[in-house]
C-alpha cells in the first residue's frame, strides 16, 4: 500500500496544474473566477464521489450489478452502499481505491472548466461536476477498472486515458456545444478572432505541476488496476515523462515550421497531450512506443485545436477537447496498437463516443434547462471576476481597456 499511497498523493498536482493552465489561458477579467471554479468543482467532485460515485464504481472484486448476454455475465455497475457506508477502513483494500477515486474524480471535473471559460456560471459548473463525479466518471471507471464489462473484454486503461481524460474531454465538448462560443469569438462572417491567454508563465508552470500529477495518476493507476510491481512502476513513470517530452517538442516543431516561432501555449498543450497519450498503456508500452505515442498525441492536439476553432466553430479556450478527448482516445488506440487487445480498445473508444458523450450531453442539457449554464450577456462583457465574485484577480491593473467583447 505504501507505494500506491505515495503515487496517489501526487494526483492533486494534476488538478492544480490544470487549474493554473486554465487560469493562464483565460482573459485577465476571468482569472480569479477560473481558479476558484477549479477549487469548487474539485470539492464538489470529492463530495459527489463520496456520496454516490464510489458506490457506482466499486473496485475489483467488489459487489456489482450484472446482466447476461451471449451466455456470459457482464458487470455493468457497482452495487456498493452510498456515502461509503460499509467500507472497512481497517483491513479491506477498499480505502485505497476510494482515495484514488476521489482524486481522479477531481481531476476529471477540472478538465471541462477550460472549455467553458469566460461564460460558464460557477454554480452551474459545480452542479455539472457533481453529475460528472457522481455518475459519468464512476460508470466508465467501473467498466474499465473495477472488473466491468470492458475489463472483461480485455480493455486496457492503466492511467485513466478513457475514464479520466476522454470522459472529461468529451464532457468539455458537450459543455462547449451547450454554451456556444464566447461573445466576439466569431465575426459575423464566421471567422474566429484570437483571444490570447493573459498569463503564459502561469500556463507553463501548470505544465510542471501537471507532470507530477500524471506520475501519480499513471503509476497509481498501474499499481491498483494492472497490479504493476516496482519495475513496472518505474517504466510507467519513464513512459509518462518521455511521452510528455515528445508531445511538447512535436508541438514546438510544428508551430516553429508553420508560424516561424514556437507557440508557448500550444507547446503547453502539446506537453499535456503527451502526458495524456502515455496514460492507457503506461505500464506496458516499450519506451520507444511511448515516445511515438507522445509525438502523435502532441501533433494531433495542435491540428485538432485549429480544426475545431476554424472549421467546426467550437470555441474551446483551453484546448481541453483536443488535449483530453482526442489525446485520451489516441492513448487508448496506441495501447491497442502496441500490445493490448485492439478490439477491446476499439470497444472502449466506441463506448466513450457512443455512450459517455450522450450521457454528458443529455444530463448537462437537462441541467441547462432548469439552471442555466451560461452567464448573462452583460456579465460576459464585465468579466466573471467582477460579476460573480465582486472583485478582480488583478485590482492594481487595468484588465481590459477596449470596449469590444
Amino acid at each position, binding site marked *: 500500500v505504501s507505494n500506491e499511497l505515495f503515487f496517489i498523493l501526487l494526483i492533486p498536482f494534476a488538478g492544480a496544474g490544470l487549474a493554473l493552465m486554465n487560469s493562464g489561458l483565460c482573459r485577465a477579467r476571468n482569472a480569479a473566477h477560473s481558479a476558484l471554479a477549479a477549487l469548487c468543482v474539485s470539492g464538489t467532485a470529492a463530495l459527489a464521489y463520496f456520496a454516490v460515485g464510489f458506490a457506482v464504481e466499486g473496485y475489483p472484486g467488489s459487489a456489482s450489478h450484472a446482466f447476461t*448476454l*451471449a451466455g*456470459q455475465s*457482464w458487470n455493468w455497475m457497482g452495487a456498493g452502499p452510498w456515502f461509503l457506508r460499509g467500507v472497512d477502513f481497517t483491513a479491506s483494500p477498499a480505502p485505497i481505491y476510494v482515495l484514488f477515486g476521489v482524486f481522479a474524480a477531481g481531476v476529471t471535473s477540472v478538465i471541462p472548466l477550460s472549455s467553458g471559460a469566460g461564460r460558464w456560471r460557477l454554480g452551474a459548473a459545480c452542479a455539472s461536476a457533481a453529475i460528472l463525479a457522481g455518475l459519468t466518471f464512476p460508470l466508465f471507471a467501473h467498466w474499465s477498472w473495477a472488473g466491468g464489462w470492458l475489463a472483461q*473484454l480485455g480493455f486496457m486503461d492503466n492511467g485513466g486515458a478513457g475514464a479520466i481524460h476522454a470522459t472529461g474531454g468529451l464532457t468539455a465538448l458537450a459543455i462547449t*456545444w451547450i454554451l*456556444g*462560443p*464566447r*461573445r466576439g469569438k*466569431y465575426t*459575423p*462572417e*464566421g471567422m474566429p478572432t484570437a483571444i490570447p491567454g493573459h498569463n503564459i508563465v502561469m500556463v507553463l508552470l501548470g505544465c510542471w505541476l501537471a507532470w507530477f500529477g500524471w506520475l501519480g495518476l499513471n503509476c497509481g493507476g498501474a499499481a491498483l488496476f494492472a497490479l504493476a510491481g516496482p519495475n513496472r512502476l518505474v517504466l510507467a513513470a519513464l513512459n509518462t515523462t518521455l511521452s510528455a517530452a515528445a508531445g511538447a517538442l512535436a508541438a514546438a516543431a510544428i508551430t516553429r515550421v508553420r508560424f516561424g516561432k514556437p507557440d508557448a501555449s500550444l507547446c503547453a498543450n502539446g506537453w499535456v497531450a503527451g502526458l495524456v497519450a502515455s496514460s492507457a498503456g503506461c505500464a506496458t508500452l516499450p519506451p520507444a512506443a511511448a515516445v511515438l505515442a507522445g509525438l502523435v498525441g502532441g501533433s494531433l492536439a495542435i491540428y485538432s485545436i485549429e480544426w475545431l476553432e476554424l472549421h*467546426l*466553430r*467550437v470555441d474551446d479556450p483551453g484546448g481541453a477537447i483536443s488535449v483530453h478527448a482526442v489525446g485520451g482516445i489516441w492513448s487508448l488506440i496506441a495501447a491497442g496498437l502496441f500490445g493490448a487487445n485492439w*478490439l*477491446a480498445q*476499439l*470497444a472502449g*473508444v*466506441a*463506448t466513450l*463516443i*457512443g*455512450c459517455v458523450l*450522450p450521457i454528458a450531453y443529455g444530463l448537462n442539457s437537462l441541467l441547462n434547462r432548469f439552471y442555466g449554464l451560461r452567464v448573462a450577456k452583460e456579465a460576459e462583457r464585465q468579466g466573471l471576476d467582477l460579476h460573480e465574485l465582486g472583485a478582480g484577480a488583478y485590482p492594481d491593473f487595468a484588465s481590459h481597456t477596449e470596449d469590444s467583447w
Partner: protein
Amino acid sequence: MSGWIIVVAAVVCLHGRSVEPVFAVAGGAVQIAGLVLLFRTHAIAPGERQ
C-alpha cells in the same frame, strides 16, 4: 449510439469469429459519421452571433 451498439454487439456476440473485426470497424465508421453530423449541427452559421 447506433455505432456503439454495433461495436459492442460485434465484440460480445461475434467473439472469435472472422467477421468480428469487420463489424467492429463498421460500427466505428458509423460513429464517425454520427460525430460529423453532430459537429455540423452544432457549428454556428456565419452571421449568427451568440
